C-alpha cells in the first residue's frame, strides 16, 4: 500500500511539470507586450518602453530560461519586490478585470466551492441509486425509464438544458433565480453586519443563523446544481446498472439468497458494495468533469465563480488571466486525482498490487 502511494506521489511533480510546460507553451504564442502582464500591471505606452520591458523581463530569451523565470519571478531592482513567479502564487495581472489574477481566484473560488460542495452529494448519490434500482427491476418500467433517461441525459447539451431551466423556472415563474444572491443579501453582505466566516455564502448564512439568507442562497444554486448533475446521473445510471446486473449473477449472491437472507439485505450488503468498483473509478473523472463543467454552467446562470471568470476572460481574449485559472484548476485536479486514486487503492486491493 505504501509502495503504491509513493509511486503515485512520484507522478505528481511530473504532472505539474507537464501541465506548466503546456500552459507556458501556449503563452509563447502571445506577443511580448501581452506577456508582460505576467509581471507588470501597466501596458507600456511607447516603443522605447516596450523594448525596455522586453529586455528587463527577458521576454525575448530562450524558452527554457523564460520558463524558469515564469516559475520563479523577477526581483525588481528598484523596489526589491518580487514580480511574477507562479511558484509563489503570482499568476500575473488581469488587464481586463484590472486586478491580480490571484485576487480574482481568491474572490471567485469560494463561490465555486460552495456550489461544488452542494453538487457532489446529489451528483454521486442519485445516479447510483437509480442505477441500482434499475438493475434490481431489470426490464420493468423503472429500468426502461432509467435507460431512456441515460440516453437523453448524455445527449442534452448543458447550456441548452440550463437555458430551458431558466426559461421555465426563472423567466416564467420566478421560482428559482440566476446569479449568486439577491440584491438585499448583497447589500447586507457588503455592509459588514453579515460575518463571513468561511466565504461560502450558504454556510455563512447558517453560521450567522440567517435562514432567510440560506434560503436565498439555495434558490440561486438549485438550477446550477441540477445542470451540473444530470449528465453525471445519466452516466452513473448506465455504469451502476450494468455493474450491478453482473454482480447479481454472481455465485455469492445466489448463496446469500439460498441461505435465506432477505432480498433487501442481499442487494444492500452483498451485491451493491461489490458493484461499486467501476462506479468509484468514475467518481474521480466526474469530479474533474465538475470543475470543467462549471465553466459553462456558471456562465449560463451568471454565477460568479471561477468558471465564469475563466469564460469571461477568454471571451475578452485575456489570455494571461485564463491561463492563471488553468494552472489553478490543473493543480486542484492533480490533487483530487491523487486522493481518488489512493482511496481507490484502499477499496480495491487489486489496484495496489498491479
Amino acid at each position, binding site marked *: 500500500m505504501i509502495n503504491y502511494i509513493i509511486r503515485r506521489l512520484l507522478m505528481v511533480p511530473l*504532472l505539474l511539470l507537464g501541465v506548466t510546460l503546456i500552459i507556458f507553451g501556449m503563452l509563447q504564442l502571445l506577443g511580448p507586450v501581452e506577456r508582460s502582464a505576467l509581471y507588470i500591471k501597466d501596458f507600456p505606452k511607447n516603443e522605447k518602453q516596450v523594448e525596455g520591458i522586453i529586455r528587463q523581463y527577458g521576454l525575448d530569451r530562450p524558452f527554457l530560461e523564460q520558463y524558469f523565470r515564469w516559475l520563479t519571478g523577477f526581483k525588481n531592482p528598484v523596489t526589491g519586490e518580487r514580480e511574477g513567479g507562479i511558484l509563489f502564487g503570482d499568476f500575473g495581472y488581469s488587464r481586463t478585470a484590472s486586478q491580480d489574477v490571484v485576487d480574482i481566484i481568491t474572490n471567485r473560488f469560494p463561490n465555486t466551492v460552495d456550489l461544488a460542495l452542494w453538487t457532489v452529494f446529489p451528483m454521486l448519490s442519485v445516479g447510483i441509486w437509480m442505477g441500482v434500482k434499475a438493475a434490481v427491476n431489470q426490464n420493468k418500467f423503472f429500468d426502461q425509464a432509467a435507460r431512456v433517461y441515460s440516453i437523453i441525459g448524455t445527449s442534452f447539451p448543458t447550456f441548452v438544458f440550463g437555458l430551458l431551466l431558466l426559461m421555465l423556472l426563472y423567466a416564467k415563474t420566478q421560482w428559482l433565480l440566476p446569479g449568486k444572491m439577491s440584491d438585499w443579501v448583497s447589500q447586507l453582505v457588503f455592509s459588514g453586519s453579515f460575518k463571513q466566516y468561511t466565504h461560502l455564502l450558504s454556510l455563512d448564512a447558517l453560521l450567522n443563523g440567517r435562514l432567510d439568507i440560506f434560503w436565498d442562497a439555495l434558490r440561486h444554486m438549485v438550477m446550477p446544481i441540477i445542470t451540473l448533475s444530470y449528465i453525471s446521473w445519466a452516466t452513473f445510471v448506465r455504469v451502476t446498472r450494468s455493474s450491478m446486473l453482473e454482480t447479481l449473477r454472481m455465485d455469492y449472491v445466489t448463496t446469500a439468497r439460498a441461505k435465506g437472507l432477505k432480498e433487501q439485505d442481499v442487494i444492500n450488503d452483498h451485491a451493491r458494495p461489490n458493484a461499486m468498483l467501476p462506479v468509484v473509478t468514475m467518481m474521480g473523472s466526474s469530479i474533474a468533469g465538475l470543475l470543467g463543467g462549471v465553466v459553462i454552467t456558471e456562465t449560463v446562470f451568471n454565477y460568479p465563480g471561477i468558471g465564469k471568470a475563466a469564460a469571461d476572460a477568454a471571451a475578452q481574449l485575456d489570455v494571461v488571466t485564463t491561463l492563471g485559472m488553468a494552472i489553478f484548476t490543473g493543480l486542484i485536479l492533480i490533487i483530487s486525482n491523487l486522493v481518488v486514486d489512493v482511496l481507490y487503492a484502499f477499496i480495491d486491493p487489486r489496484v495496489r498490487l498491479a
Partner: protein
Amino acid sequence: MTESTPTPTGDNRLLAEATSDRKISWFERTLGPDNYRIVKGLFKTPASIVGFILIVLFILIAVFAPVIAPPVGNDPMKIPRDGFGGKPKDPGTAWKKNVPEVPFWYEPLTGKTEWVHLLGTAQGQYDIFYGIIWGTRTAFQTGILVVVATVLIGVILGSIAAYYGGWVDNLIMRLTDIFMTLPYIMMALIFSAVLTPVLGRSLLPPLIAMISFGWMGYARIIRSDILSIKERDFVMAAHVSGVKNGRILFKHILPNAIFPTLVLASLGIGDVVLGFAALSFLGIGTEVGYADWGQVLSFSRNWITSLDKYWYIVVFPGITLTLFVMGWNLVGDAMRDVLDPRMRGKT
C-alpha cells in the same frame, strides 16, 4: 480434473466458422469476421436504427441546405438579416427587408407565397431557420475535421507507443496522462482564446484547440488494441522474414487493429459538435452571424429575464443540437455493447 467443452474462441472460432458451410457475403469477406460482427451489431437494436435515421436526416439537411433555405448574398454561411432591429421576432413574422428567395417547398406546403421567419429571429434580426439549416453544414465540417485530426494524432502516437514499448511507450503515455489532467472544455476555451488574436475570428481557433486537447482517448484505445495484435503469429512471421519495423507497424499491425477505433471515432462526431457549440456559445470562435448552432443559442444569453417570451431562440436550435448529438450517441451505445469484450461471441 474435468474440463467442460470450451466454447470456440479466437482462432478456434475462426476454424469453426471456416469449416461450417454458411454462405459468406462479399461484404463480410472484405471486412473480415471481427469487423463484420461490429458492423452487424450496429444495426441490431431499434435504438441504434433510430440513431442512424437521425444521422441520415441531418446529412440530407446539410446536403440540401441551398434548396431548403436558399442562400442570400455571396456567403451562404452568413445568416441573412431582416434589418437590424434589436428585439427578437416571433416565428411566423413576415420578412420585410432583404427578403430571400422563397424555397420551392414553401407554397405547396403552406399555401402562402409570402416568405416568413419560420422559426423567428434573434436579436439583430438573424433568421433562426437559416441558422439551423446552414448550421448543419458547420456541424458536419467541424465534427469530421476534428475527428479525423484527433484520430490521426491518436493513432500515430498510440501505435508508436504500443509497438516500440519501453521508454517510448512510457514517454508517450505519460504525455497522454498530462493532457488528460487538464479539463477539456476549459483548455479548449483557453487555447482558442490564445489562437484567436493570431488567426483571427474564424472556425480555426476552436478547431485547433479541440484537436490539441482531444486526441488522448484514441491514443489509449489504439495502444491497447495494438498490444494484443502485436503478439499474434503473423507479426512474428513478419519479423522473422526480416520486414522493417515501420512496415510491420503500419502495414501488418495497424490495418488489423484500427477498425474499432475508426468506428468509435466516427461516432465521436456528436461530442465534438457539442463541444464546438459550447465554445461558440461562450463567445469563442466564429464571427457574430455565422451559421452555427452554438452561435444562435448564444443570442439568448441577452434575454435571460424574458426567455419565456423569446423561447424560440433556445428551443429550436437547442432541440436541433440535442437530436444531432443523440443520433450519434444512440449508435455509439450499440457500438459500445458490440466492442465490450464480455459480449464477444454473443452477437
